[in-house]
């Protein structure tokens, strides 16, 4: 559908990821200098120029698998390590948070304000690192340039595209359940109260006009809700009050980030079946991954004792338990790619491409795409 959805999806999910990692780094008392290095490395990779060039090209949204792989790589862009279970939980939280924000936006254009809230927070994370800050600022300007001229209908198309991506995801998030913004069946609460969107009137009035344009009658009706007037419009400039709280950091050190896995799949027939055969990644998706890997520095575990593990759960036992008890239909089936440059990366991707051409039924002319991609990899 909309070919301009991917940058917004990536930036908002990335923003949520940073909120969660920041909270966990502090909850686990990771030394400040290490924590800062992790945040800076990840943000720097997220806003890598070549990577963003690829991201901002008009294109269809990536598959869930491809996007999950991108974020896997991103989370490991520094000296921090996450086990499978923690990475799964991190991704669940990120996606459910952004799904919530997209659904609760009162009008489609507010998704841009949500993105700006994330961008504002990211800028704050790197405010002491001028070079990374300027990368982020540059991207901010690009977002403003591309998105502010779009019409409300085009924003609605972006929103509809995002909602297809999030379709049927009902993972329960503890912080949402506690705040009563999510029901126990995993669906979000959509209140019929509160301010109407900017540009909308409170429902309840019927106005009848004559042929000459004069109002001849007014009728009221009960709107079945409890609405108030719209708030002022948020700012679409590089600095400004966004007004909406969606997209701001809802985590703090005292609020744990748990997800509940049990009872999520109330009716397993509703969840999309996850294929166990390797799903061919489209050429575009592989391109993005290649760019991402090209921009990564090599961080070997145990190098001078600087690497460390972060746990999204309270204990190691909990983490292990979560991995074992994760329902099948919620497994992401990530493609694992080692974080080494050049030769190894080439070989790894070649191997994956090889696997895909064997799986037959799903891949359209993979071989020609593979050739192009490998040629491109050689150039990195």
């Amino acid at each position, binding site marked *: 559908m909309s070919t301009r959805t991917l940058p917004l999806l990536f930036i908002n999910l990335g923003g949520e990821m940073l909120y969660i990692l920041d909270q966990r780094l502090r909850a686990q008392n990771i030394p400040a200098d290490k924590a800062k290095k992790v945040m800076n490395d990840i943000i720097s990779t997220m806003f890598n120029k070549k990577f963003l060039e690829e991201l901002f090209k008009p294109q269809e949204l990536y598959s869930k698998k491809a996007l999950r792989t991108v974020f896997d790589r991103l989370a490991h862009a520094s000296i921090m390590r996450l086990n499978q279970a923690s990475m799964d939980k991190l991704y669940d939280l990120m996606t459910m948070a952004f799904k919530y924000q997209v659904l609760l936006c009162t*009008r489609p254009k507010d998704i841009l304000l949500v993105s700006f809230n994330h961008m504002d927070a990211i800028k704050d994370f790197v405010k002491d690192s001028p070079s990374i800050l300027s990368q982020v600022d540059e991207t901010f300007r690009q977002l403003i340039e591309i998105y502010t001229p779009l019409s409300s209908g085009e924003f609605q198309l972006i929103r509809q595209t995002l909602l297809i991506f999030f*379709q049927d995801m009902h993972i329960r998030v503890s912080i949402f359940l506690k705040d009563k913004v999510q029901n126990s069946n995993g669906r979000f609460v959509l209140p019929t109260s509160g301010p109407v969107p900017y540009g909308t009137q409170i429902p309840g009035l019927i106005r009848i006009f004559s042929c000459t344009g004069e109002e001849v009658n007014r009728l009221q009706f009960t709107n079945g809700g409890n609405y108030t007037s719209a708030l002022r419009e948020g700012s679409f400039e590089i600095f400004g009050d966004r007004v909406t709280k969606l997209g701001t950091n809802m985590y703090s050190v005292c609020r744990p980030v748990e997800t509940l896995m049990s009872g999520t799949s109330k009716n397993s027939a509703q969840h999309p079946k996850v294929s166990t055969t390797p799903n061919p990644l489209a050429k575009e998706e592989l391109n993005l991954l290649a760019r991402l890997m090209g921009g990564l520095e090599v961080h070997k575990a145990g190098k001078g004792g600087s690497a460390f593990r972060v746990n999204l759960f309270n204990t190691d036992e909990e983490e292990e338990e979560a991995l074992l008890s994760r329902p099948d239909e919620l497994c992401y089936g990530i493609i694992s790619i080692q974080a080494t440059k050049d030769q190894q990366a080439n070989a790894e991707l070649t191997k994956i491409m090889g696997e895909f051409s064997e799986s037959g039924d799903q891949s359209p002319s993979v071989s020609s795409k593979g050739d192009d991609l490998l040629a491109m990899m050689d150039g990195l």
Partner: protein
Amino acid sequence: MFHKEKSIQIKNSASALYNNLSVLRIAPRKLTYFTVVHANVVNMVSASWDGLNYSHRQLQSKEPNVATSTSLIMQASFCVLPSRDLLVVTSQKGIQMYESDGSIMVYWHALDTPETPTAQAVFARGISAVWDNYICVGVSSGSILVFDIPTKGSNITLSEVLEEHKASITDMASECSGSQECIADMVSADDGGNLCVWKAGEEFHLLNKISGFDMTCSCVKLWKGTVAAGYGTGQIRLYEAVTGILHVEINAHARWINSLDIAPFSGLLLSAAEDSLVRVWHMSLTPETNSVEVTHLHNECVTDTQICGARFCDDDGYAFAVTGYDLSEIIRYTQT
């Protein structure tokens, strides 16, 4: 005034699209067909009137004779012509037309999709049967494709391309096929909120253009020469089609309106929006004074659901059905 009936379960949840429900009543067989779009699939349910039999079918959006290449579906709609009923499915790749039971595809029209994606998305959206023998389909560029439909068979041809809208078509509607005499046959709406009113024929003729003030009109209906238009701001406006005179303006919903329907025999109007509410209104026209009146009759709240489709199940408006984003059921209501 209305009470909830037993819902119909569907195989997938409904996607967040405009007008995501189409209903076809087959009186001779005491059946009603429903279609709901989920990503690249159309879920079809055939429900018997006694409530005992339900059969399901799924249609995929893809080019015929090509193994893969699926694309997302924007809309599926039944088109009722005097001689036949067809199911039209519009997607990112093109337009498919099926026999109304979804059994056979009778026609495929490919859209011009560029080699590499462009900033302007490409898709077809907005479907309407017009007059006796036309089906019109809108395109993201703002063009409207007019297809000439023979009384039977698959010899469907593209008769004309109407280039009047500058923004993506959102919805189209018509009235008057066969016997009745109407001035305006069809209305089309776009992302910019602009409405075009047309007279059908071998060459379609533009009768009027109604400006939208940059607020997207997502759904539109035509009844007795009156256009009912639903907007992203939650407003409903009733215009006189040929003159563009605004008769009624309703602050109807607190969120984007995704569906409008009219029961032609009773003048009931149905509106549904992302605010979880479905509202029933009554329209009355007084031709002598050229006035239009609207009264509000009823509200239904589908808790925690952003409604994406609402349709009357019959021409009197005795019953209506509703779909919502992430909901795997068609909710039904009938008059008490």
